[in-house]
Structure formats: structure tokens, C-alpha cells
């Protein structure tokens, strides 16, 4: 464990050191975030005025609904795409083989970047929520933080499992991430990122329940907007436990297979 912490800290130091070379990109990304939040505010003014009955179970808080939808989708994006993107880049840059040649086990080499990305996404989300609360009037006074704290490890495990699955697939097909593309599109459509899932026909809602993001958003919105307890969100918690229990080992197995394939066909050093 100490070894992994060392790798993690060295990775963070290296990333922060590299960030110095991307100042313009960093500023542009921050500006993009500000504009995204601002557009959510105007959208919420427009939609919130209609007192939509579908938003009743979220305290009729469309701004909160939207902000949490976007944050949840970003968290999934980090989990599902982070590791796959990292592997693709490392193969293309040629660093993957040099890293795998060190004594660190492959899970450690490839585990640090997504953990860093999850940490960064959590910090961004916190900053986003604080800014939306202080500047834009997002109401989180009812929030049940215990529910959020209990859900986060399950969400990270489920998304990491998907991430390993996507990364393994990326190594096998040597193209950018078909799993991430499919999961990302389906989730955006069926998990209720921009609209409540209650507006979907029943059969599409049933399909949406097969996606981890649907339950992640249900838990985050329930906990943060109306203060729901874990018991009140039991269905979504059970679903997240199943996703974490199935996807994490499945993803690890697919990834281990893909790594062995890369050592067989010599693709550790090229893409």
C-alpha cells in the first residue's frame, strides 16, 4: 500500500509539473466551466418557471437537478474514459512499455492515473457545488452528506470497473474505447442527465436502470436536493452494490487478459 501511495504522490507531482506547460489550456477549460454553469442558470430560470411536475421529487430545484446531472456524468466520464485514454496515450507516446518494465505491478502503473482523475473530478465537483451555492443560489440546505459519503465508494468502484472494461477493450481493439462511447451515449440518453427519467417511456426507463449512472444520479440528487437517507434510496444503493460487485472483478479480468494479449502480440510499445 505504501508503494502505491508513493507512486500516486509521484504521479501527482509529475502531473502538476506538466500542468505548467498547459496554462492556456487550463484557463480555457476554467472559462468553459464558468460558461457551462452560467448557461445552466439561465436554462433553470427558463425551465424552472414552468413548475414541471417531473421535478417535484427533486424539490422542484432544476438548477440543482442539472448541476448534479452534469457532475455525475463527468464522474462517469472520468471513470470510463480515464484509464482507457491514459493507456492509449501511453502506447502512442511509448511510455507504457517503460512503465510496465519497472517492478511495479501493472495495476499500480495503471491505477494511479484514474485515481488522480477521480480525485481531481471530486475537487472540481466540490468547487462547482460551492460556486453554484454561493454565486447562483443553488439550495443544498437539505443535503444528507452521510448518504453521499456512503455512495461515493460504490460509485467509484462501479465506474472503475467500467473503466477497466473500457481500457481492456481499448488494448484489444487498439482503437479509442468502444465501451466508453456506447456507455457514454446510452447514459446521456437514458440515465437522466438533463431530464428526469420519469419523462421516458417505461421500456426505456427499464433499459436505463441497467446503467450505473442512473442510480448514481438518483442517489446524488436524492441525498443533496431533498436529504434522502440511505434507506430511502435502498433500491439505488443495492443496484450500485451489484454494479460494483460485478463490474470491478469483470473489468479486472478483461484488463488482465488484454495486458497478456499485449505482451503476446508486442503491442505494449506501439498502438
Amino acid at each position, binding site marked *: 500500500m505504501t508503494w502505491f501511495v508513493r507512486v500516486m504522490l509521484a504521479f501527482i*507531482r*509529475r502531473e502538476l509539473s506538466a500542468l505548467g506547460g498547459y496554462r492556456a489550456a487550463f484557463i480555457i477549460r476554467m472559462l468553459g466551466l464558468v460558461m457551462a454553469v452560467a448557461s445552466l442558470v439561465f436554462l433553470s430560470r427558463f425551465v424552472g418557471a414552468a413548475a414541471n411536475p417531473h421535478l417535484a421529487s427533486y424539490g422542484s430545484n432544476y438548477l440543482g437537478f442539472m448541476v448534479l446531472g452534469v457532475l455525475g456524468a463527468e464522474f462517469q466520464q472520468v471513470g470510463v474514459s480515464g484509464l482507457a485514454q491514459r493507456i492509449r496515450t501511453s502506447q502512442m507516446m511509448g*511510455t507504457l*512499455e517503460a512503465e510496465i518494465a519497472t517492478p*511495479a*505491478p501493472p495495476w499500480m502503473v495503471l491505477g494511479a492515473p484514474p485515481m488522480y482523475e477521480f480525485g481531481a473530478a471530486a475537487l472540481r465537483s466540490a468547487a462547482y457545488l460551492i460556486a453554484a451555492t454561493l454565486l447562483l443560489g443553488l439550495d443544498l440546505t437539505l443535503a444528507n452528506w452521510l448518504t453521499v459519503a456512503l455512495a461515493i465508494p460504490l460509485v467509484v468502484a462501479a465506474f472503475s470497473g467500467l473503466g477497466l472494461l473500457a481500457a481492456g477493450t481499448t488494448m484489444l481493439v487498439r482503437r479509442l474505447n468502444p465501451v466508453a462511447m456506447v456507455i457514454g451515449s446510452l447514459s446521456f440518453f437514458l440515465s437522466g442527465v438533463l431530464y428526469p427519467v420519469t419523462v421516458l417511456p417505461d421500456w426505456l426507463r427499464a433499459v436505463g436502470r441497467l446503467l450505473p449512472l442512473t442510480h448514481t444520479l438518483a442517489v446524488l440528487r436524492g441525498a443533496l436536493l431533498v436529504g434522502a437517507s440511505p434507506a430511502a434510496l435502498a433500491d439505488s444503493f443495492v443496484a450500485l452494490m451489484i454494479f460494483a460487485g460485478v463490474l470491478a472483478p469483470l473489468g479486472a479480468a478483461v484488463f488482465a487478459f488484454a495486458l497478456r494479449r499485449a505482451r503476446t502480440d508486442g503491442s*505494449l510499445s506501439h498502438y
Partner: protein
Amino acid sequence: MSAAPAVVAEGLSKVFRPPSGFGEMLRGRFHGRPIPALTQVSFSVGPGEIVCVMGPNGAGKSTLVRILGGLLLPSSGIARVCGVDAQTGGSAFRRRVAFVVGDERSFHYRVSGRANLHYFAALHGLSAGEARRRAAALLDRVGLTAAADRRYQEYSRGMRQRLALARGLLAEPEVLLLDEPTLGLDPRGARDLRAFLRDDVIRKPGRTAIVCSNDPSEARALADRVLFLEAGKLHADAPPDRIEAELGL
């Protein structure tokens, strides 16, 4: 009684099976024509010995050292380094063997040479303090102290090769596998790096080394013995003074 060999290859073969094209896949063929890269290669290397692997492009030199480094799985045969199977040895194996690749893409371009070494030191399990000390000592040893905090992308080819060497020495390995260590260097830079490699990095600490090269002067400067590969087959195992004859020069 003679010491156990540091490196043993027994009947190593490697056949690559590239993925087929889309049309072939539709016909149910998922692999293209098999490409034999190594065929029944066997040899051993004694402790402290420097062996150069030579041969024309595509002879299988890089494939051979990647198999010995545990980065590529052979189709058949066994590779043992320091008595450990390269295929299954895991972390314990990779602590004893360092693979130094001449590929200059193997570092992170946007950070300094020092930061790159710190990161790789962490992957070797060194603490931050140890990593700092070790990186500083190695940067000094390869003559990069003055450039240590410059970004890797600003390094010349020779500096990149020397940084790769420093990375290979982070764990003080018993066996060094070097794939074209002076590739692309000017004659004087190549000569200096070879002298440093031979005297400081390999001979002095009594390491074993296998060096892939296309350059006869490199083999003469470094090797005790030369293995000649031709189309994936080992066709000669000879002293360096046989290089010209074996290569038909």
C-alpha cells in the same frame, strides 16, 4: 565449478499473428499471415559477461531482448534471467533486470529529466527521499546534472539516451538489456557513451549485459561475445573479431 549462467534462452521462438483486415474478418479469418520473428534460439550468458546481439534489420534482435526482459511472451521456449523465468517472474524478476530502450519516446515530454526519474523511482518502490538522492546521483553519473531541470522535450538525442540509462540503473539491476543504446548519436557521443557503459555501468559493478546493435564498432567496443541473428535464427556465436566475417562485410 563454474557459476550458473545469468541469462539462459532455451529454444525461444516467437511468431507474431497480426490482426487481419476487415475483408478477411468477414471471411472468418481474424489473423493475417503469421510472421516468424525468432526460431529456436538457444544460448546462455555468464555472470559479468557482455554479449552483443547483431543482425540486419528485422533479424529478431529487439524481439529477443523484449522476451528476455519479460515484456513479450515467447510462442515457445524458456527465457531465464538470474534463474527467474522471464514470463512469470513478476516484480521480483523486474527488480533484477533492467530494459534500457533506445526509443526516445519512453519518457514524459512535458516534464524535466529529474521529474521523469522521480516518477520511475517511485515505480521502483523508492521513497520520495530515496528517489531524490538516487536521481541526483544518477543524473550526475550520466552527466546530466546541469540539464536535470530542463524539460525532456528540450533534450538532445544523446541526453535522452543517457537519461534512459540512468532510469535503467535506478534499481541497481544485476542484468542490463540494452536495445541500440547509441542509436542516432554522433560518433563522438556514441564513443563516450560506450566507454561509460562498458567501464562504469557494466564492468565496475560486475553486471551482465546484453546489447542489441547494428554497429560493428559498438560490438567491438563492448562485447566479449557476439550472437548473430539472421531471419530470426541464431546462426553464429563468435568473438568480436569475427564480426566482419560473420556479417559478410
